[in-house]
């Protein structure tokens, strides 16, 4: 079931068309029966990813990532709507209702997080702010980094899960950019290819190791 969900939205190669979020916002709401658990898990995952994406968009001054944040923000509204509907249908007695109210509160919180992420990317559009945001964000404990994959790297054509990037370097890959396409939240079966750009989150040490590996200066990750 987990695999099926992941096929849904994350980890696939996509092109974010301009104003994709608008299409999502004005499309008809269709009632798709999904379980509360699936909805809530997706909402939690988005709530964590979207913050990092929002800061990445601002840090790297990237309008396309900002666009994805707007899309996820709109998607989150929909998920929140769906989960409310599902919860109402599931409640039969007062005890059910009490417990389900807790679920809806967490869902609501996840939605507020995505709204905050939307506010962060709006900083990008309005003012050309200059270097103050990157200056602030570069001091964080865990930072966001951008690395280009060299065709000399042993990582080329390998799966992220097989390379164990995250467990070996602590670097969590948030986004892959491949030519004009983007893969958000790549999964363990996503392959890395030469000339991909990766945006990842982690410590300085993790970055140095991963960078060497992706530049082809290091044969394997230790």
């Amino acid at each position, binding site marked *: 079931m*987990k695999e099926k969900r992941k096929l849904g939205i*994350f980890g696939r190669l996509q092109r974010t068309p301009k104003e994709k979020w608008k299409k999502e916002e004005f499309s008809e709401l269709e009632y798709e029966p999904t379980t*509360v*658990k699936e909805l*809530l*898990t997706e909402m*939690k*995952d988005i*709530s*964590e*990813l979207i*913050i990092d994406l*929002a*800061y990445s968009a*601002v840090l790297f001054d990237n309008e396309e990532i900002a666009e994805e944040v707007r899309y996820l923000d709109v998607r989150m509204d929909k998920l929140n709507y769906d989960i409310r509907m599902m919860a109402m249908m599931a409640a039969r007695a007062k005890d059910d209702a*009490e*417990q*389900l*109210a*807790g*679920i809806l*509160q*967490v869902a*609501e*919180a*996840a939605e*507020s*997080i995505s709204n*905050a*992420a939307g*506010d*962060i990317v*709006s*900083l990008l559009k309005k*003012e050309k*702010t*200059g270097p*103050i*945001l990157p*200056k*602030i*964000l570069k*001091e*964080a*404990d*865990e930072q966001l980094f951008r690395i280009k994959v060299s065709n000399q790297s042993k990582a080329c054509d390998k799966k992220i899960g097989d390379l*164990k990037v*995250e*467990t*070996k*370097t*602590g*670097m*969590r890959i948030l986004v892959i950019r491949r030519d004009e396409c983007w893969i958000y*939240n790549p999964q363990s079966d996503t392959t890395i290819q030469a000339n991909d750009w990766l945006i990842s989150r*982690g*410590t300085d*040490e*993790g970055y140095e*190791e991963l960078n060497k590996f992706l530049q082809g200066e290091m044969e394997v990750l230790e």
Partner: protein
Amino acid sequence: MTSKAVEDIVLEIKDKSELMIDLAYSSILYDNETIAKEVYDLEDLIDDLYKSLQRKTLEQVENKKLSVEDALTVLRLAEAAEQIADAAQEIADVELRDVELHPILKISVRDSDVVFTRVKVEPQSVLCDKTLGDIKLGSETGMYIRAIRHGDKWLYGPDKHSKVNSGDVLFAKGPEDGEKHLLALAAGKTKEI
């Protein structure tokens, strides 16, 4: 007052708000009221930070040390982080209510891309008596320690100087594979970090 102060405060608000999210989800996963209460305390702290940030930012604008544009950017970023902190508090609030948590809550927190884990450090573990900076768990296992319980004392958002002692309980966040490695390390089954 230098312009550094303003940037430091924004960063602290940002880092703390992310810690709060992690703690809030952990409190639900482990049905842990102590962690949930900490989220409340952090929210108070962030409110204070945000207020002092507003004042300092305005002072710097008045002294012409910060442009109006930069000041607005700083304040809006902090406002967004503050909203994230509020959301974390909402999540923690569910744990603190006198209603048993719906099992789906725990499953959803558990069954996601990033897992939270809790592990006790055994006396024979290589982690004992080392600082987090020494063992570099983050870059070696992918697991980031978000809280340490030492007896009945808690350390939230530990840094590289924080020490791990035998008997401590570590609350960490990271990928599923990293979790196994951390569990083996804490149990003393693996000596290699």
